């Protein structure tokens, strides 16, 4: 059962990922991305990381996608078709990416992972105590840092987004 769900998810993710990067309509490609992100959340569910899946859904699907959609709506006409790179470049890139996939997969498949059979359930409480733990293996410092980064990013985003239009005099500073 889980196996089938995984394969469905996988196929869905790959298809939507490809359509997301090839679609010529901006908004559509954002929506396709949303599906990919949901697929990732599905995989998190499958491996029993419910908390993570929740975060994925709320932050990514809920927050980031909305943000992107807003920006798309602000800067684009819905019907605008995006221009793509030259076909030759697309082909070369595609070939490069395929070779990359090949390289990665050979590496992965030639490496004997020592898989530990388990069915542990990770609770949110565990994650929380780990995040805030300051003893052995605690992540309090990165946690704090990331908080500050988020704050800074937020302030920065506001400042940048509201920044005034450059006057002609400052043209040369670009």
């Amino acid at each position: 059962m889980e196996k089938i769900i995984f394969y469905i998810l996988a196929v869905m993710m790959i298809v939507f990922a490809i359509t997301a990067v090839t679609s010529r309509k901006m908004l559509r490609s954002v929506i396709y991305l949303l599906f990919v992100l949901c697929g990732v959340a599905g995989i998190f569910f499958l491996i029993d990381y419910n908390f993570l899946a929740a975060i994925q859904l709320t932050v990514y699907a809920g927050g980031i996608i909305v943000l992107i959609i807003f920006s798309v709506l602000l800067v684009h006409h819905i019907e605008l078709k995006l221009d793509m790179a030259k076909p030759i470049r697309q082909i070369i890139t595609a070939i490069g990416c395929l070779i990359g996939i090949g390289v990665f997969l050979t590496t992965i498949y030639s490496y004997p992972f020592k898989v530990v059979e388990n069915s542990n359930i990770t609770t949110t409480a565990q994650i929380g105590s780990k995040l805030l733990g300051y003893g052995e293996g605690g992540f309090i410092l990165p946690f704090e840092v990331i908080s500050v980064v988020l704050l800074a990013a937020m302030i920065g985003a506001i400042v940048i987004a509201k920044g005034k239009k450059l006057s002609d005099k400052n043209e040369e500073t670009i």
Partner: protein
Amino acid sequence: MDISYIILVPFIPLAVFILLGLFNQKIKPAVSGYIGVLGLLVSSSLSFYAAYQYFFVSGKMDGVYQTFIEKAVWMKFTETLQIDMGILVDPISVMMLVVVSVVSLMVHIYSRGYMKGDDGYTRFFSFLSLFTFSMYGLVLATNLFQIYIFWELVGVSSFLLIGYYYTKPSAVAAAKKAFIVTRFADFGFLVGILIVGFTTGTFDFETLNAVSPEGGSLLLNWASTSFMGLSVITWALILIFMGGAGKSAMLPFHIWLPDAMEGPTPVSALIHAATMVVAGVFLVARLFPMFYFVEDGFALNIVAYVGAISSLFAAIIAITQNDIKRVLAFSTMSQLGYMMLALGVSGYEGHEGLGYMASMFHLFTHAMFKALLFLGAGSVIHAVHSNYLKDMGGLRKYMPITNITFLIASLAIAGVPPFAGFWSKDEILVAAFENNILIYCSSVFVAGLTAFYMFRIYFGIFWSKEKAYDHAPKESPLSMTFPLLFLALLSIVVGFIPFSEFVTSDKIGFEAHLNYPLAAIATTVGLIGIVLAWAFYKKENSLSDKYANAFGALYRWAYDKFYFDEIYLFITKNIIFKWISAPFAKFDRKYVDGTMVGIGNKTVWTSEKIKGLQSGRVQDYAFSFIAGAVVLALVFIYLWTN
């Protein structure tokens, strides 16, 4: 014998030069003339005293004239090889001291009148002093390098004095020519010195001349090292003679001498007749033992032939020239050829060394009468303001003293007894007769030619038809006539000096006798020349033109100096300037510089080409990054799997 006071002889003119040179603008002309004459008077007195001391009091020991040397190290190369500065007193240097002193003093006195009112009066006297200093230094030199040093200094004084009228392009050109041609000859001289210095390890005349036919001297050890069929030392001697030929205007380095007449006439008298031009002869005489002993005098033979050919060549040209100073210049060259050939045919000891002695004797007498001729010519030029024969004639009425003195000098040079030239020339002819009959015949012929061209200009100037002068020519002032009279007196008496007692190749005096048959032949030939000249030129007539036409092409060639000037012009203008310098300069700009600039341009070009890579598009960077990463990964996988 104490010779230290002789050091003062060159240094007084040097002091005068520095004084006049530094305060050129501040000294009144009259004063500078007096300073110059006075300085030289002191030097001359010292020289005469030295000559008297050397020849009559203390120079002789056991019948041999001793060599006195006083020197100090000037520059040290190795333990043995060094350049000294000093004075060397032996018969020829003392004799040269006298020659330089007499002529220079007379010229100084003469110049006070001749150069009067000239802008650069002080400059003129300072240069004269510089020259006199250098010439004294040259004749007193103790080693090859010292002689080379003063050799260059007389060259530069000559340059400065020829170019004295520096605003005149012809004078500048002549000065340049004189310097460059002699410099070219000096190049040979220098290489010769280097060879000698290396092979023998010394520059000293004393050591070098200590050669004897028995061998054993350091020189002969090297004489066996051969290069292109001749010994190294012979090559060195030939090269040194090249330097001498340059200064003494021997063929083919003679071309500067006629042009040098652009200088003021006193300069011509001093430098280009009496003193500097005999430096080449002096040099050969100085190294005579080397020339004579190394490889059986091969180099000496060259000297003889070059001298003989030059003397004949110059005499032929002299007949055709119309500028009186040029005639005198070619005459000088011809007489220098005489001296050279006399050295060339000379032997070494006793009467064998007659040529050597005759050469020095002729040098001595020639200095007197040739200086007189030049000063006389200067006096004439002063009066008529022209160098050309066509502007002169009938001057004997206006300039009696000049006339008489010029006549005396002409007789002297023509070899009419009892004037000075007769005695010395006779010795030369005897020496030539005894050694090389071919050279003897040519010399006799030259003697006739000499008489002819000298009397051609004498009659042309003082007799002939009177020309229309702007203002009546008048006799020169006393300052100019006094040297004329004095030198005329000398031209009469110096021939009676028993020269062979004093100056000989082995420094042992011998008694020379007049060889009556030979003397008679020479005198007869001279007289024939004079008579011919009298017939041609005493009255203005067309006889000369007729004969000139008869000779046709030969006359033209001689008139154009056998086109030597053109050859030189071709070499300098075409070969050096056009075929060497210009291509070099162009090559430098176009290829050498072009390569360097090209490297720069290629760099710019390359960077223009590759700057597109730095496009500023992050995607492009990412593309290269990922492609690179993939390639690297592939490489590593390949490496690991193998």
